[in-house]
């Protein structure tokens, strides 16, 4: 059990006093988010997103320019913990890529990029059940969860995502409650 887990276990057992968390880590969570870093790393966000929702025979994350939307949504709709966790996460992606593959993320091959993201995916699964809920409440969502959430929202609400990968009917005009569909039926983009 690493240090964070140990602290969170104590939170859960005792009902938790926030003061046991180190000053530095609180600072990272609540400091004024470094939006410039966000703007400067648009390509990194685009590459990460393309790993999450790749182009197949339908448009992918980059086709939908999700990086632009993700940055806007993080800035406008994310709370401070989400903003900082996302920005710190991007920095961790860079340092992890450099330490394992000796290159920044955007210069890695697709399999290498997949490997890096898998590392962060696994990291996000370190907590489960009540411990996970307590963790999210206290520390905010993990980098991977935030990336996946905003990438998915940005993609599925984009024109290429909604009309090219999903199915979008602007003005349906009628309702059919039960109809036969084929196996390759796409899901509706809106409800």
């Amino acid at each position: 059990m690493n240090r964070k887990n140990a602290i969170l276990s104590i939170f859960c057992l005792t009902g938790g006093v926030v003061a046991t968390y180190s000053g530095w880590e609180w600072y990272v969570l609540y400091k004024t988010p470094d939006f410039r870093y966000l703007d400067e790393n648009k390509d990194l966000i685009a590459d990460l997103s393309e790993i999450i929702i790749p182009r197949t025979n339908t448009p992918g994350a980059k086709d939908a320019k999700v990086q632009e939307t993700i940055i806007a949504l993080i800035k406008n709709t994310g709370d401070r913990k989400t903003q900082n966790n996302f920005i710190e996460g991007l920095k961790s992606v860079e340092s992890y890529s450099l330490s394992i593959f000796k290159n920044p993320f955007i210069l890695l091959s697709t399999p290498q990029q997949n490997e890096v993201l898998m590392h962060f995916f696994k990291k996000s699964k370190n907590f489960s059940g009540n411990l996970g809920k307590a963790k999210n409440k206290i520390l905010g969502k993990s980098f991977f969860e935030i990336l996946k959430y905003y990438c998915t929202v940005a993609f599925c609400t984009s024109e290429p995502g909604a009309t090219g990968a999903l199915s979008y009917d602007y003005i349906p005009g009628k309702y059919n409650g039960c109809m036969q569909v084929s196996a390759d039926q796409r899901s509706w983009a809106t409800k």
Partner: protein
Amino acid sequence: MGGQQKPAGIHINNNGQQEQTYDAIVVGSGISGGWAAKELCEKGLKTLLLERGRNVEHIKDYPTSMMRPWDFADRMEISQKYKAENPIQSIVANEGSKHFFVNDQQHPYIQQNPFYWIRGYQVGGRSLTWGRQTYRLSDLDFEANLKDGYGEDWPIRYQDISSWYDYVEKFVGISGRAEGIPHLPDGIFLPPMEMNCIETHFSEKIKAHFKERFVIHGRVANLSKGWGGRGPCQYRNLCDRGCPFGGYFSSNSATIPFAAATGNLTLRPHAIVSQIILDEQSGKARGVRIIDELTKESREFFARIIFLNASTIATTSILLQSVSKRFTNGLGNSSGQIGLNLMDHHSGAGASGEYDGYENQYYSGRRPTGIYIPRFRNINDQSRHPNFIRGYGYQAGGQRTDWMGIMNADNTFGESYKNELTKPGPWTMWMGAWGECLPNPANTVTLDPERKDSWGLPLININFSYGENERVMRQDAKESAAEMLEVAGFRKIQTFDYDFTGGTTVHEMGTARMGLNPKTSVLNKFNQMHDVKNVFITDGSCMPSGGCQNPSLTYMALTARACDYAVGELKKNNL
């Protein structure tokens, strides 16, 4: 678009110099005020309709109604800035509808206990953003207070109002189906909006297993066919932005244009009513005093009858502000009842589940309603519940899991994730209870003696909390929902209880109740004030009890009925 025509013959009273006297004044242009204006205008009365907020013209003032998801900067997520400035309205408002909700900073109120006061200060009020579910009350509801002793007995019974339900339904246009359920009376319906595969499945299983639980089509004020020059519904399910097709009923799309077409309507937006002016000699109201929202100037308008339809809490505050020698504690308040017995419906408790099957079935179009399970507790001796009185109905709906559900599942990323995201997921069913709240005199609306708003009017103080009966009922609602899903073969059943805070359901009622006895009630059986005969109140404040049905249809029927009575009395020179 949808054969709409611009409302003709509408007078906008902007200076009020030349026109200060009318036959009737209606305060508030929401769902009941719109009806009052229409009825009074159609009966030939020169009517002034006062609205505290801005004008919203049908179609023209629905700026987000044709926007696609990608046209929204925040993709329908709520921005932190909006949430911080509007902690209450942001519970309900979204990026597409937030211009139809007040700004919490500009319109503060005091909460003794958390109470969400969701408001729309504009012409049309909350009729623009309402849930559109429309169910009749029955004698099970009208007799409830008398039978169990909570609250004041209703001065009317179903037979007094049934023809008025007919009357308003014919105009509104309600999609639904006759079922012959005694405690949820049938109405005059347009064709129902059909059930989807899983809902039909659920309906059949419940019918086979339970004797007194029915799964019926949602009854909704959306038009399944063109009606009175409006609609039909285009199945976009974007109603809360205002509908450019007139696909659902609102004051803006329906009652106000009809009122205007008579040539008798004068609409004055930005008119905050501060007081009803009493003529101490005759004991009748002479008119109203308003504060112009923009210039903050005060001015008076006069009329022979006044309809107060400002919505429950605002109507209460106007009455309490209207003090005089005769009524030192608020207009028509000799009973002392004004401001007591605030009610809402409690909602947000229920269950959901997944279903294996119907993999090759899907739906198209976005139906703006779901299914309904009428009350089945305490409807007769056999269905009596040992632990609570009154009851609840479920609003429910089935759908196939979409990307919004799939992204929260425990999945990874890459091609497999994308594949999952873009295919219809498993069928699910959600069912949530809408439950009755007992009238309780401890739940109050009062005026703060010191603190004032930007217009110098006292801040409203809301003191509301749910009681034990509601709490116990909720537990049963969760368990019964889970039981029904299990019976219908669902798995992964989860019960939920989102938010048990007053105001959540936006069905405020009860603070100027009707009753036979002037000593214990504010309004008589025609919604006429016992104490001030030419003032009528037909918004939610008149309700002695709330039933568990969505209440707007009842306000509409009571309004039309009260207008008919008021004009009759006027003609007989009784007012």
